[in-house]
């Protein structure tokens, strides 16, 4: 297949740029609405409102951001690993039945089967190829662990602040990990991620969206797996 010529930085990277901008815009939106919501609670408790800068550096904002990030990375980590071994007949999110597993080096263009334009670490073999072969899933797993720990620390601080405002004793971090607050936050985020993946896996079997990389071509059969565009 011939390589398309680059059509300029913006067109070649439109997807990342648009979603990067949307991420920034929605994070700012969360910060603004979060400040307003926090201050409404402050006033209701007879306390003073805080500034925008104070809110975005608070554990309350920190936990609200981190608890969402950790579940996104968990979703991708699980999805990447699961799609090695599990299939969904007819889905664009799946390999074809019979292709389960890590596939052959030839199919994966690894080591001596690599092309001229294969990434360097796909060609060299040894630990570099082994690591590169798992780099996507590994990064998602690492980011999940880091953001989950961060959300537990921020959640612990936010929880203790609420404890004190309710005239109750604060708890240690290990005690917080056993608290319903931590697991409630974790599970409520996780359930939506699993729903999203499951929904896409199933919907993409039977429904189409012409031109999207997430959809099979409109006229392709329901039972056809793994095709997109």
């Amino acid at each position: 297949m011939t390589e398309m010529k680059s059509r300029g930085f913006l067109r070649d990277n439109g997807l990342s740029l648009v979603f990067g901008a949307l991420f920034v815009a929605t994070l700012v939106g969360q910060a603004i609405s979060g400040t307003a919501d926090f201050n409404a609670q402050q006033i209701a408790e007879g306390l003073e409102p805080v500034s925008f800068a104070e809110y975005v550096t608070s554990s309350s904002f920190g936990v609200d951001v981190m608890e969402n990030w950790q579940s996104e990375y968990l979703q991708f980590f699980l999805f990447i690993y699961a799609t090695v071994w599990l299939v969904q007949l007819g889905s664009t999110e799946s390999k074809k039945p019979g292709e389960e597993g890590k596939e052959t080096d030839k199919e994966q263009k690894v080591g001596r089967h690599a092309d001229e334009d294969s990434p360097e670490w796909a060609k060299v073999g040894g630990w570099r190829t082994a690591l590169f072969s798992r780099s996507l899933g590994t990064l998602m797993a690492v980011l999940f662990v880091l953001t989950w720990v961060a959300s537990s620390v921020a959640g612990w601080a936010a929880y203790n602040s609420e404890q004190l405002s309710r005239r109750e004793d604060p708890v240690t971090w290990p005690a917080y990990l056993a608290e319903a607050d931590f697991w409630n936050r974790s599970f409520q985020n996780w359930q939506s991620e699993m729903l999203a993946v499951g929904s896409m896996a199933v919907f993409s079997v039977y429904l189409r969206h012409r031109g999207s990389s997430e959809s099979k071509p409109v006229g392709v059969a329901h039972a056809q797996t793994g095709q997109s565009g």
Partner: protein
Amino acid sequence: MGRAARFRRSAAVAAAAAAVLGGCASTQQPEVERVATAFEDPAGDPETRCDLLTPAALSALEEQASQPCDEAIEDLPLEGGEVESVEVWGGDAQVRLSGDTLFLAETSTGWRVAAAACQPNGEAPYDCEVEP
């Protein structure tokens, strides 16, 4: 960068992250202690001590006692004592003295006592004589 230096830098980054995520509490501790001990000091000027209450706690005290704070404060069971522990989380704090437990809140004019003469109450919130 050597391994030891890299480890120290990672540890410092982790500590900084924990401090930011936790709301930078440790820098507030001396001020929280000062306010709590000044409020509980029986030799302190009553008006100064009353200024250390949050507006909500002040008006609740005056309403409950049916007298101005600087008179009511003399009758309160504020035993004071040595500082045993200080917990600061965001804009809330708890100070345990040998004779009393207080809860404080951060206001635009600094830390103020939100509840005092508090007794533990099992799993339930502390039972406080002075509170909104």
